[in-house]
C-alpha cells in the first residue's frame, strides 16, 4: 500500500553475475592458467590436465583411439569413485571404441565433425555438455562428470555419468515422526531436489543453482515457488548468498551464519530441516528453501519464532491432538526456560509464595546442603548438559550407559551425599525433559543458554531479575527480523488471521489462506466451500467469507 519493500541488506552489494566468476577474480594468479581455452591438441590438453591434477591419484586418465585403424586419438578423464563406472564403460567407451566404428565408415571420421557426430549419435547418455575452457573441464571432472577429449578438437564433451556411493533414503534422525513421510534428505543435492520435485509437481517450482566456496565448489540450490514467493525475497536471498566469499561451504550451517539478519542474536533466524515434506510446505507458503550439496539439512527462510515450536507432524495428526501438543510444547518451552530460575528466585527471595508445607519440606531437604540454591542449580544444570552432550557424541550403546550412570548414579548419590537436594534433582529433570519437547534443536540450544542467563539474574535479583531478563529477551525478539519478516509475527505484530496456525492448529479446511508471508498471487489455499457436500454443515463457509475481503 505504501512504501516499497524494506528488506534489510548487508550492503547494497555489487551485482555479481555468479559466484564462480566472483571467486575466480579473487583467485591467486598462480592458478590463472586454468582459465585457458582448450587447444586442439589432445596431447597438450592432457598435459594441462595432468599438471593440474598432479599428485591426485584418484583422477583416471584413459587415452585410446577411435576407428578401425586407430586414427583418432581420444581420452576420457574422470575422478575414480565419482562416476558410474558401468555407464562410462558401456555407454561411453564401448560406444566410441566398438559400436561407432562399426556403424559408419572410416572416411566419415576424417571428413565430418567427429565430435559433433559422437555427441549426436554415439553416446546413449542424456547429459552431455560441451566445454571449451580447461577450467570448465576441471570443474566438471571434480563434480563427477567424465570429460571426453578428442584429438584435433578444442572442445571437450562433458558426460554426466555420475554415480557415487550415497546414503540410502532414511528416516530423518533429528525429526522423526509417528505419522508422516519417513524419508529424509541425504547428502546429495540432486536426490534432495528430486525429493522436493516429487512432492510439488508444478512448473512453478523453480530450483536455481549456484556454486559457493572457492575450494569446495559446493552446489547450492535455491528452491521457491515462482507464483508464491515474492520477487523481493528471492532476489534478496540470492543477493545475500552471492555476497558470500569463502573457501568452503561444508554444511548449511555455514550459510546460515552468513545470511542471517542479525548474526549476534542467540535465536536462529533461519529454519533448518531434514524433511522434504517440511521444505515443500514451506515453499507452498511462499518461503524459499536453500539446499546445500553435502548435507541433508536444508534451510528455509524466512523463519518465524513460532515455527521453531512447530513440527511437521502437527499438520498430519488430527488437529485437536496437534493443538494440544502445541500447547504442551509452549508450556514446555516456558518450563524449560524458566523453571530453574523460578525455583532459585522463589526459594531464595520469595519464600512466601510457597505453600507452608512445601516450604518446610524443601527446607528439610536442604538441611545440610552446603551450597546456595543457585550454585546447586548451576552444578546440576551443567552436569545435565554435560551428560546430554556425552550421550550424543558417544556410540549409541555407550551413550545409553552414560545416561544411566549419569541420571541414576550421580543423581541418587549426590542426593544421598547431601550435595544437592531432591527437589533440585526434580527441577533439573523436569527442565531437561521439557527442553527435549522443543522440536527444533537450534531453539532448544538458545533456550539452554538463556536458561543459564536467567538463572544468574534470578539469583541476583529474584523475580525482578527474571522479569528484567524476559523483558530484554522480548525486546530483542521484537526487534529481530528474518529476511524482512518480523520475527515474532503473527503474534506481534498482531495478525489474528494467521493465528489459526500458531499456538493451536485449526483444521485444514478452515485454513483457507496461506500465511500472510505471501503478498503475491493467490492467497487462497483452497476454495472457501471445501467440505460443503449434501447433508454437511457448511463449516468452512462462514470463515471463508470473512477471510476473503
Amino acid at each position, binding site marked *: *500500500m*505504501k*512504501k*516499497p*519493500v*524494506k*528488506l534489510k541488506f548487508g550492503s547494497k552489494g555489487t551485482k555479481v553475475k555468479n559466484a564462480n566468476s566472483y571467486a575466480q577474480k579473487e583467485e591467486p594468479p598462480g592458478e590463472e592458467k586454468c582459465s585457458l581455452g582448450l587447444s586442439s591438441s589432445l596431447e597438450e590438453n592432457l598435459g594441462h590436465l595432468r599438471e593440474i591434477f598432479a599428485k591426485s591419484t584418484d583422477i583416471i586418465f584413459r587415452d585410446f583411439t577411435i576407428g578401425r585403424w586407430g586414427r583418432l586419438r581420444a581420452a576420457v578423464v574422470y575422478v575414480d569413485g565419482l562416476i558410474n563406472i558401468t555407464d562410462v564403460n558401456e555407454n561411453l567407451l564401448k560406444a566410441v571404441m566398438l559400436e561407432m566404428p562399426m556403424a559408419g565408415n572410416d572416411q566419415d571420421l576424417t571428413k565430418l565433425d567427429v565430435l559433433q557426430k559422437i555427441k549426436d549419435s554415439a553416446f546413449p547418455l542424456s547429459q552431455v555438455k560441451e566445454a571449451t575452457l580447461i577450467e570448465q573441464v576441471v570443474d566438471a571432472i571434480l563434480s563427477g562428470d567424465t570429460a571426453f577429449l578428442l584429438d584435433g578438437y578444442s572442445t571437450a564433451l562433458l558426460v554426466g555419468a555420475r554415480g557415487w556411493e550415497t546414503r540410502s533414503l532414511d528416516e530423518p534422525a533429528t525429526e522423526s515422526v509417528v505419522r508422516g513421510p519417513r524419508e529424509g534428505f541425504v547428502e546429495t543435492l540432486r536426490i534432495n531436489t528430486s525429493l522436493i520435485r516429487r512432492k510439488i509437481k508444478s512448473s512453478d517450482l523453480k530450483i536455481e543453482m549456484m556454486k559457493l566456496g572457492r575450494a569446495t565448489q559446493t552446489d547450492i540450490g535455491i528452491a521457491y515457488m515462482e507464483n508464491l514467493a*515474492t520477487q*523481493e525475497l528471492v532476489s534478496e536471498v540470492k543477493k545475500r548468498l552471492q555476497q558470500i566469499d569463502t573457501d568452503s561451504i561444508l554444511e548449511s550451517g555455514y550459510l546460515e551464519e552468513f545470511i542471517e539478519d542479525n548474526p549476534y542474536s542467540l535465536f536462529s533466524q533461519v529454519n533448518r530441516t531434514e524433511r522434504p515434506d517440511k521444505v515443500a510446505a514451506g515453499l507452498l507458503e511462499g518461503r524459499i528453501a536453500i539446499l546445500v550439496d553435502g548435507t541433508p539439512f536444508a534451510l528455509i527462510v524466512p523463519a518465524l519464532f513460532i515455527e521453531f515450536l512447530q513440527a511437521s507432524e502437527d499438520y498430519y495428526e488430527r488437529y485437536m491432538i496437534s493443538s494440544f501438543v502445541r500447547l504442551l510444547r509452549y508450556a514446555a518451552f516456558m518450563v524449560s526456560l524458566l523453571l530453574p530460575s523460578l525455583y532459585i528466585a522463589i526459594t531464595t*527471595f*520469595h519464600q*512466601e*509464595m510457597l*505453600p507452608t508445607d*512445601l516450604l518446610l519440606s524443601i527446607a528439610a531437604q536442604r538441611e545440610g546442603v552446603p551450597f546456595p540454591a543457585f550454585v546447586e542449580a548451576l552444578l546440576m544444570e551443567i552436569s545435565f548438559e554435560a551428560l546430554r552432550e556425552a550421550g550424543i557424541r558417544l556410540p549409541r550403546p555407550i551413550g545409553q550407559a552414560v545416561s544411566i550412570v549419569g541420571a541414576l548414579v550421580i543423581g541418587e548419590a549426590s542426593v544421598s551425599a547431601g550435595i544437592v537436594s531432591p527437589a533440585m534433582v526434580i527441577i533439573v529433570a523436569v527442565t531437561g525433559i521439557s527442553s527435549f519437547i522443543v522440536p527444533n534443536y537450534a531453539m532448544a540450544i538458545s533456550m539452554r543458554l538463556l536458561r543459564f542467563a536467567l538463572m544468574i539474574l534470578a539469583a541476583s*535479583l*529474584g*523475580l*525482578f531479575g527474571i*522479569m*528484567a531478563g524476559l*523483558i*530484554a529477551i*522480548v*525486546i530483542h525478539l*521484537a*526487534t529481530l*527480523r528474518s529476511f*524482512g*519478516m*518480523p520475527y*515474532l*509475527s*503473527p*503474534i*506481534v*505484530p*498482531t*495478525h*489474528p*488471521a494467521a493465528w489459526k496456525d500458531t499456538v493451536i492448529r485449526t483444521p485444514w479446511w478452515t485454513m483457507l489462506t496461506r500465511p*500472510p*508471508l505471501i*503478498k503475491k498471487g493467490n492467497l487462497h489455499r483452497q476454495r472457501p466451500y471445501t467440505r460443503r457436500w449434501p447433508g454437511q454443515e457448511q463449516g468452512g463457509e462462514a470463515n471463508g467469507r470473512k477471510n476473503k*475481503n
Partner: protein
Amino acid sequence: MAEKTRISWVQATLLLINMVTATLILVVPAITTEAARQDAWLSALVATFGGLLLAFIFTKLQQRFPRENLLQFSITILGPVLGKVVGFLYLWYFLHLAAIIIRSFGDFLVISFMPETPVWVFIIIITILAAYAVHNGLEVIARVNILFFALVILSIVIIFFLTAKDMDFTNLTPILAEGWKPVVRGSLFPLAWIGEIVIGLMILSHLANPGEIKRVYLVTTIGVGILLLQVIIGVVATFGPEYTSHLIFPGLTGTRIISIGNFIERLEALAMVMWVGGAFTKICLVYYAGVYGMAEWFRLKDPRPLVGPAGIILVFFALIIYEHFIDFLKFATVPFPMYTLTTFEGGLPLLLLVIAILRKKGGAGNVQKNPGSNDDSSASTNSRLLEPQGNK
C-alpha cells in the same frame, strides 16, 4: 522525522491503555478512596468522563495535524519561538513524568519485594531496558507492549477472580453519602493519570491510518476507565474504604490475601508482573516521547544518540526527585494532579487547539477516514502487521 514508523490503531490503543493502567491501579485506589471513601468507584466514572473531555481535545488537535507530533504542531500553531517554548515545557513534563514513574517503580519493588536492595539497582536496570527498547524505536515498543499488555490484563483478571471470595460489595454503599464533592475531589488523581494520554500526541502521528485517531483516544479512555473501575471496586469491596485508604498499594495487598485451598497463596508475583509489565511500557513511552521530542527540539535527524544521555539524566533525576515515598504520595495526591492537569494535560492542549482554530492552522479539523478504512480496518491492520511487504 526520519523514522518512517507506522503503528496500527490497536497497537497505539494498547500502548496508551497499558501506559496509564498499570501504574494507575496500584497506587490510585488508595488515594481516591481516601478522598471519596466508598464512592471511589464513582470517582473512577467521573475521572473517565473527564478523561473523555481531555481525549476530545487531543483528538481534535491531532486530527488537525495528523502527521505531526506535539512539538511539531505547536511550532506550526504558535510560530517558532513560542512553539519552541511550549515544546521545552513538554520536554520538561516528559522528563518529570519519566523520573517520577521510574522512581516509584523502584520504590514499589523495594517496599514490597526486596527491602534490603537499594533503589538504584532497579532504577538503573529498568532504565537500561527502556533505553534498549527506545533505541529500537516505536514499532518495537508497540510490539513488546502487546505481550506485556496481555500479561497485565491476565494478572488483573486472575487477581480479581481469586480475591472475589473476599469481596463484600456492601462495602460500596451507601452511595453519595457525602454528596458529590469528595467524589470529584477523589477523581482528580485518576484524571491526572488518565490525562497522561497526552503522550499519545507524540506517537499518534505514526498511526498507519490517521482516520483512526478518534477511535484510539475513545477506546483508550474507556478501556482505562473500565480497568480502573474494576480495580477500585475490587479493592474497596475487599478491604472496605477505611482500610483501603490506609494502604499504600491496595492492589498489591489484594494479591497478598489470596488464599485458595491452602496452596495458592500470596500471589504477589502477579502484582509484580502487572507492575513491571505496565510500568515498563510507561517508562518506554515517556522516555520515547522525551528523546524524540528532544531530537525534534534540537532538530536532529537521528534521535538515537540522545537515548543514552537522556537515560543518564533520567536515572539521576529519578534518584533525587524525592526522598521518601510518603513525599511522593503527598505530592501525588493534590499538587501533582493540579499541576499536570492544568498545564500539560488540559490547559496547554486546549490553548493550542483554540489558537489553531482561530489562526486556522492545520487541517479542517476533520481528517476523514480513508475511503473504506472503516470496514476495511482489519485489512489495513493486517497489511501493517507485515511491515516489510506493503501492498503493491
